[in-house]
């Protein structure tokens, strides 16, 4: 059984929708995810479309929108300047000078990695294996 994810189908309201306001009808649905405040300071959809590169620079409809467009034109000029900033030359040299002397280690899977074992550890491991084998042999003979 599948969950009914459409709440509008519940409660006998199937097929009924709240009538859309005129302002909503003129807006693409995708733009409604952007919260627009009612204070009049919100970035308008036209300005966002322009700054996103989806539309040409909007024509100001009133003094307020003209000021907003001018502000964003200036911010864009500043952004454009920053877009051409390059890494200071000395930084690259500093990075190269600060690199560790050791070469980066190639990551090998554990079964390909070499292990270093001292003779004492090797003897102890061998003795342990012999003891384990003897114990297993004894228990098998007893059965």
């Amino acid at each position, binding site marked *: 059984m599948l969950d009914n994810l459409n709440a509008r189908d519940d409660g006998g309201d199937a097929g009924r929708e709240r009538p859309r306001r005129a302002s909503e009808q003129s807006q693409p649905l995708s733009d409604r995810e952007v919260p627009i405040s009612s204070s009049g*300071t919100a*970035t308008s959809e036209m300005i966002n479309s322009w700054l*996103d590169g989806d539309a040409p620079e909007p024509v100001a409809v009133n003094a307020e929108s003209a000021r*907003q467009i001018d502000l964003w034109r*200036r*911010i864009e000029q500043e952004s454009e300047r920053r877009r051409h900033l390059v890494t200071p030359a000395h*930084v690259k040299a500093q990075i190269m000078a*600060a690199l560790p002397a050791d*070469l*980066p280690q190639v990551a090998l899977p554990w079964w390909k990695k070499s292990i270093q074992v001292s003779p004492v550890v090797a003897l102890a491991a061998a003795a342990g294996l012999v003891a384990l084998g003897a114990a297993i042999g004894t228990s098998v003979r007893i059965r």
Partner: protein
Amino acid sequence: MKTTVPTSPTDQLEVDQDIISRVLAGNRDAFSILINRYSDPLYRHALGMTGSPDVAEDILQMSFIKVYQHLAEVRGRFDAWVFRIVANGCKDWLKNIRRTHLSYDEDDQPSGYSTPDEELDRTELRSDLDRALMTLAPSLREAFVMKHVEGRSYEEMADLLGTTVGALKMRVHRAREALQALLEEKYA
């Protein structure tokens, strides 16, 4: 030594892999090619996120050292991997720092403005914009910087940040709304 970044992502991947192989084979100097290929956009990102050239340089240096140490672990796109390292470096720095004022070095970049009034106005906007950016949540600032300062497309941003175009559009729009609210009283 300046290497041109190929346009095709596949070409770019292959070139990066070739350079990485050379470094891993012992050619340490080949690492400078990777630095030349990617340092500028990464520096702009760090500068946009921190607002400080010195901090941006430090983050870039630490990030590239980390990249060098873990170069053998690169799987897939090198540019996306190194971007994540720098972006995380910026976020870590932002978590640990509390600042009252930071601004770009004015002498660093040549001016394209002719009159002293315009230059003064521009300098003021620059520092005001920096201050306003610093008030944004890191995720909003990151989205704004990537879109406006780095000039990336939403698709590219989504690819690098591992999120959706819709979510990033929302972040950028919210960042613009906040910046406009902060700046328009003075400038609009």
